[in-house]
């Protein structure tokens, strides 16, 4: 390479490095005249938004500034000039204005494609269908708007664990209002006051335990059943569909049952809504504590079906338990039972399947699944029995071998003594 060409490359590289360093040294986009004044305001109401926005905000990170939501002229040094009507200053948007401000960008497909191409753009439309949106349209400004859930300044991405709408935080965010009995006063549903114990109940549910104890973020929280932007209680006819979003097999079985025509609240009739307990076999049947007996009385077909299905499930459960114990015993004695362990797992699958089929409330289907499960346990029991016979055979063999060994040892000892006496 020629020396002058090298020098040119070197100069270019230096310019690029200097440009990168200069760009690095530039204040973030949010560093505007608004922030310069608001940050140092003695009033917390004026200073905190500026400080929060300067600290972290998904919009700030993408180059948006205060004026994009509030209007005004950030270059003006004078407060009056900065907020002059000619600058488009909007001040603090409230109520429907918040929806409009957010939707200006979030409903703009072309704009959103630049920043988050996969993000939906129908939040505002959905919001209008929600109870919140409908109430707002009626002039109720107490209801939640975008900022109530996402925050106004310091907005974080939904996937950020510190975001108020991160799955683990949703229940707390919703119940900020919904657990506040004072705030909820006056709101009714089907003529009754809206409850404020949803969170307390939810925290006892199997869904909450899955999410919090097992950190399963796919477990449902408020918005998974109620919707988020279009939040509303699922209608009576929609409950089975909502639950069926995840529990699809149960929903399809339930749809076949006569109960689907009779139950006013679908799945909720037996499983409750916010406080959904871990389902158990004890819920089925007619014994004390079983749910079927709530409606069915002795002699009716439902009573008979529930009793029969519960008895069948209990029988298979007991048979599996027995087979497990037998397998463990034989394996403990050194017999390899890997194939039988798999068969037993299959029997367990049949038990689960019977519990699923039960939601169609047709005893004949359940009985046929249970019969297959029982046949599998019988197979395992037969193998365990063969294993026990094998153990017994081995022990007999060992006893004979040991007897022979002891005899040889005694004979050798006698021979040694004879030899020693002789010498």
């Amino acid at each position, binding site marked *: 390479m020629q020396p002058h060409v090298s020098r040119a490359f070197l100069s270019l590289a230096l310019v690029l490095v200097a440009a990168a360093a200069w760009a690095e040294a530039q204040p973030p986009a949010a560093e505007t005249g608004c922030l310069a004044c608001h940050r140092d305001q003695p009033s917390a109401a004026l200073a905190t938004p500026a400080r929060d926005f300067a600290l972290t905000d998904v919009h700030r990170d993408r180059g948006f500034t205060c004026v994009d939501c509030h209007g005004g002229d950030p270059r003006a040094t004078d407060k009056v000039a900065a907020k002059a009507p000619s600058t488009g200053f909007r001040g603090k948007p409230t109520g429907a204005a918040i929806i409009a401000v957010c939707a200006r960008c979030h409903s703009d497909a072309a704009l959103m494609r630049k920043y988050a191409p996969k993000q939906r753009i129908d939040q505002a439309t959905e919001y209008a269908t929600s109870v919140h949106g409908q109430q707002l349209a009626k002039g109720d400004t107490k209801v939640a708007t975008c900022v109530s859930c996402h925050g106004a300044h310091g907005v974080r991405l939904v996937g950020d664990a510190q975001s108020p709408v991160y799955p683990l935080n949703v229940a707390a965010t919703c119940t900020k209002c919904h657990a506040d009995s004072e705030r909820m006063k006056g709101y009714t549903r089907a003529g009754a006051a809206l409850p404020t114990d949803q969170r307390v109940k939810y925290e006892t549910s199997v869904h909450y335990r899955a999410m919090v104890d097992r950190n399963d973020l796919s477990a449902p929280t408020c918005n998974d059943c109620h919707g988020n932007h279009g939040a509303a209680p699922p209608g009576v006819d929609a409950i089975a569909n909502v639950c069926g979003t995840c529990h699809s097999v149960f929903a399809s079985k339930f749809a076949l049952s006569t109960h689907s025509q009779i139950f006013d609240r679908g799945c909720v009739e037996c499983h409750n809504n916010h406080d959904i307990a871990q389902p158990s076999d004890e819920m089925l049947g007619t014994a004390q504590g079983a749910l079927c007996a709530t409606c069915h009385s002795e002699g009716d077909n439902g009573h008979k079906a529930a009793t029969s299905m519960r008895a069948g499930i209990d029988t298979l459960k007991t048979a599996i338990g027995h087979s497990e114990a037998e397998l463990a015993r034989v394996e403990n004695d*050194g*017999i*390899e039972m890997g194939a039988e362990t798999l068969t037993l797992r299959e029997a367990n699958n049949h038990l689960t399947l019977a519990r699923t089929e039960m939601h169609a409330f047709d005893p004949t289907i359940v009985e046929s699944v249970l019969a297959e499960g029982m046949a599998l346990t019988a197979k395992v029991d037969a193998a365990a029995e063969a294993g026990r016979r094998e153990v017994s055979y081995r022990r007999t063999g060992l006893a004979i071998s040991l007897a022979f*060994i002891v005899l040889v040892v005694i004979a*050798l000892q006698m021979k040694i003594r004879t*030899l020693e006496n002789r010498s």
Partner: protein
Amino acid sequence: MTQQLYAWLDQRLDLSALQHFIAEKSVPVHKHRVWYYMGGITLFLVGVQVFTGILLLLYYRPSADEAFESVKFIVSQVEFGWLIRNIHSWSANLLIFMAFVHLFSTLFLRSYRKPRELTWVTGVLLLFVMMGFGFSGYLLPWNELAFFATKVGTGIAGAVPVVGDFTMRFLRGGDDVTGATLTRFYGLHVAILPAITTGILGVHLLLIQRQGMSVPPSVEKQEKSGATIPQMPFFPHYVLHDLMWWYVALGVLAALALFLPWEIGKKADAFAVVPPGIRPEWYFLAMFQVLKLLPAHIMGVEGEMLGVLGFGLAAMVLLFLPFLDRGAAEGRSSRLVTIGGVIALAYMLVFTIYGYLAA
């Protein structure tokens, strides 16, 4: 016919000389002679390992995909496969145990003293080779516990200064424990170590036959003061004693194989979470436990490296003990050797138990 065959062989192999040697050979009789049989039992267990090992070879498949399944097949489908596998596993452990008993009895009776230095050296080398058998054989069923224990074990080899990294990679056949390690350990277990054992064991047995049994210094003193040490003929007296002990060992092995079957465990999975209670075989446990307890750095030097060096030094002292304890040949029993032996024994006992309890 038999006589004719004997005469035919005698002309070619000079069997009469061997017969004469055996007929003339005698073994001293004294109160410590029970320890003589420990070596015999160890030898018997080596034979059991060879026999059962060859049978296992017929069905075992040394690859990461098939090893575990083949062991499962051996214990569940092959006629008496369960017995052979259990005996092989138990015999391996009893073999190392008996080798230690043999070593400590030889040490305390000072049987290594002149002129049996080489018998001791070959014996200690055999113990190291047996431990190598144990280490390589542990991985062969390719189960979870063995997989992670081998990872830890080969990792410790990596702590050796200068050659550590090479040794670790050489043992593993790469950077990590994989199917390549299994194949390598298999080759080591069924070809390289047996070849080494054959050579060293041959020398060890030859030396014993050439030099005869050592008597403890206390008995030797009596002999020197004019007392006659009673002797028993090697054949058939001593051989029958040996045979009797071998039968006892066989009975113990059979009972252990049946009542305490060796577990197969879960198939090794490199991506699985390391199961709790990972530990090596019991004969490495005392060393493993010490390495675990050592601080990360001792006076600026890596603790594990110091530990490995310490064990290396101890192994060298053990190997060359006859040349370090020169007074033993003159009948001066070194108290240092006795104290060292007792400490080593106590250390092994305490730290092995501690290792089990800590896991």
